[in-house]
């Protein structure tokens, strides 16, 4: 009788395994396949969702205008659940099973570094919309980005701190995060001579309780706290700081940009963050993008959305320039991107495969941002 139970289990197991479907093994030649790996869910879910929405807006526009090289572009999106290991698996799947000719991703520098290694190995060009750690494009000559790097962004934050007269600053950084590490280095380089970093504390992305470190920060008596971290931790940290009566301004980088930060409302008042874009930017390219985005998604876009949008358009343009949907040609075309009229600014990809773009510093008040400063690249 025992064989009946065992057979039942075996059948269940086989059924379970077979239900894991293989989505994209076929290769229709009447489409150009581009892969996207993004954090659609998990700790930094709004990053992936925003950049995906921006990208799809761009691709829909391109396809509506007839596609590229006479074919529509199809984006195959893989969710990496905000995890770097999953990012590697996602990129491997896109390359080896879906046979994409190019990849767009990721927002988070840590995951871009992880996915970039795979792309470089398989010689598939990768375009990051908003990873700012300098090391991302140093992985190899197949990795590009259309945003500024943390050398620049750190300097922007430092200049802003000096401008606000903050002489004593505490850096509260995320040890598990490459973005945080790079931005801290960039900030220190710019701030070293102008003010003093009275303390440096750290936490781990995903930690819940920061009160121990915040108590220590409070007793250091800073004028402001530099917090180069991602939005989920930022909101928790500022909230707990205010609970401890630590009321100095917190400021950080583009990792703050998320609907979650705005939704936190008044607790974030008096804080600032550097960013790639502001919805108050009066330039027509920005405003027409915002209108198109609002028409499609019924909400105001954030920086990840506009960069995802520009990444899609730059990629489509590169494929057109390349003349064929073939990874090496696309890679060479991407390297030649010059003065591309992006919604987030004019995009020229330099010899280190980075872009030089202006930065904004946004102030938070009442769940809304306003432009506190604009800094152009030298």
């Amino acid at each position: 009788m025992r064989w009946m139970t065992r057979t039942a289990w075996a059948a269940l197991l086989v059924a379970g395994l077979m239900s894991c479907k293989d989505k994209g093994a076929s290769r229709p030649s009447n489409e150009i396949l581009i892969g996207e790996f993004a954090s659609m869910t998990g700790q930094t879910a709004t990053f992936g969702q925003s950049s995906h929405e921006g990208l799809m807006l761009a691709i829909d526009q391109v396809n509506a205008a007839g596609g590229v090289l006479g074919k529509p572009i199809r984006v195959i999106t893989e969710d990496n659940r905000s995890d770097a290991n999953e990012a590697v698996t996602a990129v491997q799947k896109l390359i080896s099973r879906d046979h994409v000719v190019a990849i767009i991703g990721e927002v988070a520098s840590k995951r871009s570094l992880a996915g970039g290694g795979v792309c470089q190995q398989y010689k598939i060009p990768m375009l990051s919309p908003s990873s700012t750690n300098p090391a991302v494009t140093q992985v190899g000559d197949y990795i590009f980005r259309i945003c500024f790097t943390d050398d620049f962004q750190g300097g922007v934050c430092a200049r802003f701190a000096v401008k606000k007269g903050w002489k004593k600053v505490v850096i509260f950084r995320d040890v598990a995060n490459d973005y945080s590490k790079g931005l801290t280095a960039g900030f220190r380089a710019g701030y070293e001579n102008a003010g003093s970093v009275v303390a440096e504390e750290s936490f781990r992305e995903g930690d819940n309780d920061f009160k121990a470190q915040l108590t220590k920060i409070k007793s250091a008596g800073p004028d402001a706290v530099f917090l180069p971290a991602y939005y989920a931790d930022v909101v928790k940290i500022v909230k707990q700081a205010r609970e401890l009566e630590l009321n100095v301004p917190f400021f950080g980088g583009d990792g703050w940009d998320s609907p979650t930060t705005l939704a936190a409302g008044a607790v974030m008042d008096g804080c600032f963050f550097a960013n790639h874009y502001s919805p108050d930017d009066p330039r027509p390219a920005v405003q027409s993008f915002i209108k198109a985005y609002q028409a499609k998604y019924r909400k105001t876009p954030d920086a990840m959305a506009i960069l995802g949008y520009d990444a899609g358009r730059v990629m489509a343009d590169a494929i057109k320039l390349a003349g064929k949907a073939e990874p090496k040609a696309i890679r060479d075309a991407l390297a030649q991107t010059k003065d591309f009229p992006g919604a987030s600014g004019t995009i020229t990809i330099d010899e280190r495969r980075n872009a030089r773009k202006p930065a904004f510093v946004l102030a938070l008040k009442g769940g809304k941002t306003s432009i506190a400063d604009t800094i152009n690249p030298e």
Partner: protein
Amino acid sequence: MHDLIQQLIIGLSIGATYALIALGYTMVYGVLRLINFAHGEVYMMGAVVGFHVTNLIARWRLPLWVSLPFVFVTAMVACAALGFLIEFLAYRPLRNRPRLVVLITAIGVSLLLQNLAQMWFIFGPTPQAFPPLIPQYSKTFGTPPNTITISNLDVLSFGLSVGLMAALAWVVLRTRTGLALRAVSYRFDTSSLMGINTNRTISFTFMLGSALAAVAGVVDAIRYDVKPLMGLMPGLKAFVAAVLGGIGSIPGALVGGMLMGLVETLVKGYLSSAYADAVAFVVLIVILLVKPSGLFGRYVPEKL
């Protein structure tokens, strides 16, 4: 000085949660000599159940003195049921197998629960804030900048832990089921000879420990947020706390939990915040080297 007091308050508040979870580890180890690695996930499921229940009752606008106990009790009942199921389905069939087999099964159950929680129909992979249930306010003492702040959640967490542990002590020391629990912990085979239904006692132990973990889960969910992997670190740290206090000893779990909370907070506050998680595991290694039976445990040599 005020800084130290503030860090102590933070430490005890965190430690109270670890103590509640550690109790589950220690009781299950006491009766079954099994380290139930799935226990951290029971804590997480308590948070998830609390999350869903609070969302469900939001529209009824119940007064706080009704809604708060209701949420806690529902989470406790749900996790007790979950604990029972885990024991019944995963551990009982392996009762007479080598301990390693059950250990691996426990790890498997842990992974299963973690991944189940990430499914859309249970919770999903993205962290979510707990819906409004208790207004959070803090009381600050002292003159700035020398202030000490206590939040009502710190008081709730500590109060619940101590209260529940007192209730647990009463159950274990003063009821027949508690007597059965202690008997099974002491000698498994002999207790069944004495007429104790060991299966029922073990189920009861799992349910009790899981209910306590559920309380910790709801408290942490309100304080921070709900994530499907939130049970990983607290589960490990509570396990260390149980070992520190003497695995199998109930007062040991309480003391171990508080100590772990204090150590973690003091390291974050006075040494370096980067080592806060690592220090938990250093404590584990040190206690196993120096006093493996833990602070309250007795070293029982195995007579072959």
